[in-house]
């Protein structure tokens, strides 16, 4: 799966620039506790969350995850989005719940141990 397909798969839209065609999605992680995300999310992951603070951008960068997916139509403040663009963190918003979004991704991604 590549990143540019993600908006179609999750019926969402990118809040940051359209990601490069080559960017791959290799896994997914769903969590709203930053400490767990720091410990368990990794490069190539799509991170599903309802969190939208500035620290979401930092944690996304720290873990190297491919994309932050804001579920349930959660928005992001312009200043936070600006920070995401600066740090080249891709952000997508979807009206789906985390459960629904994870369900769609689970059909397309291998389960990780």
């Amino acid at each position, binding site marked *: 799966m590549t990143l540019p397909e993600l908006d179609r798969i999750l019926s969402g839209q990118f809040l940051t620039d359209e990601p490069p065609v080559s960017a791959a999605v290799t896994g997914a992680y769903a969590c709203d506790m930053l*400490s767990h995300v720091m410990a368990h999310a990794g490069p190539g992951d799509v991170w599903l969350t309802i*969190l*939208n*603070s*500035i*620290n979401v951008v*930092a944690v996304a*960068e*720290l873990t190297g995850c491919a994309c932050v997916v804001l579920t349930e139509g959660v928005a992001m403040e312009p200043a936070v989005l600006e920070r995401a663009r600066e740090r080249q963190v891709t952000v997508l918003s979807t009206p789906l719940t985390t459960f629904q979004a994870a369900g769609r991704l689970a059909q397309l991604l291998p389960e990780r141990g």
Partner: protein
Amino acid sequence: MKCFYDLHIHSALSPCAEKDMTPQNIVAMARLKGLGAIAVTDHQSSANCAAVMEASRDLAGPVVIPGLEIESSEEIHLLCLLPGLHEAQQMQRVVRAALPTRLNRPDIFGTQLLLDRHDRITGEETCLLLQACSLDCQTLALQVRNLGGVLIPAHVDRDAYSMLQTLGAIPADFPTAWLEFTSPDAARDCLGRHPALAAYRPLYNSDAHRLGDIAEARFCLDLPDSAGFGGAGCRHAILQALQPC
């Protein structure tokens, strides 16, 4: 006696704070604003409190209460204020022992500067302070109480790291008489949505990460006249005023 306060200020030890949040700058700005008392509350650390207290003595600045902004295992921010430096250091040890050993990435989170009373950089904190510790709110409250301090849910009106947002309510058994709000407007708004909050007293702090954000002399605590205007007596009186009933 009225004491104008701002009890939630970050120094340059907090990675998200600006580099010019140095002891002398904080004290000078607080004095300029006419504040009688401030608290230095960096994320998960009290390491710069001594320097700010000393700088305030040097510059005849406001009373400085040592503290920390603790992030609990529930990822709730709690304003922790302590009666003295010794207690603040003890509380920091408790928090540090419960902090994951993940290192800071200054390129992502910002630098974590240790400073002395003359604003000289004495070192850098290497452990990431912008992460939760493994102790929950109730456990932390007990620890803080044993040290004679207070633990007040921080910026409860906000979406991020707020006890109200994360737990959906302020648990009745959480030992506080006070809640921190961003502003009276935010508190009114919050009270409209959560009428039960009327049982608490509001504390309005700046949560300043930049010098310009340190509060104006607008909000005050009523302290007994015996508290005096400087040092340990005033610190004690403020902590007394903020104790859970």
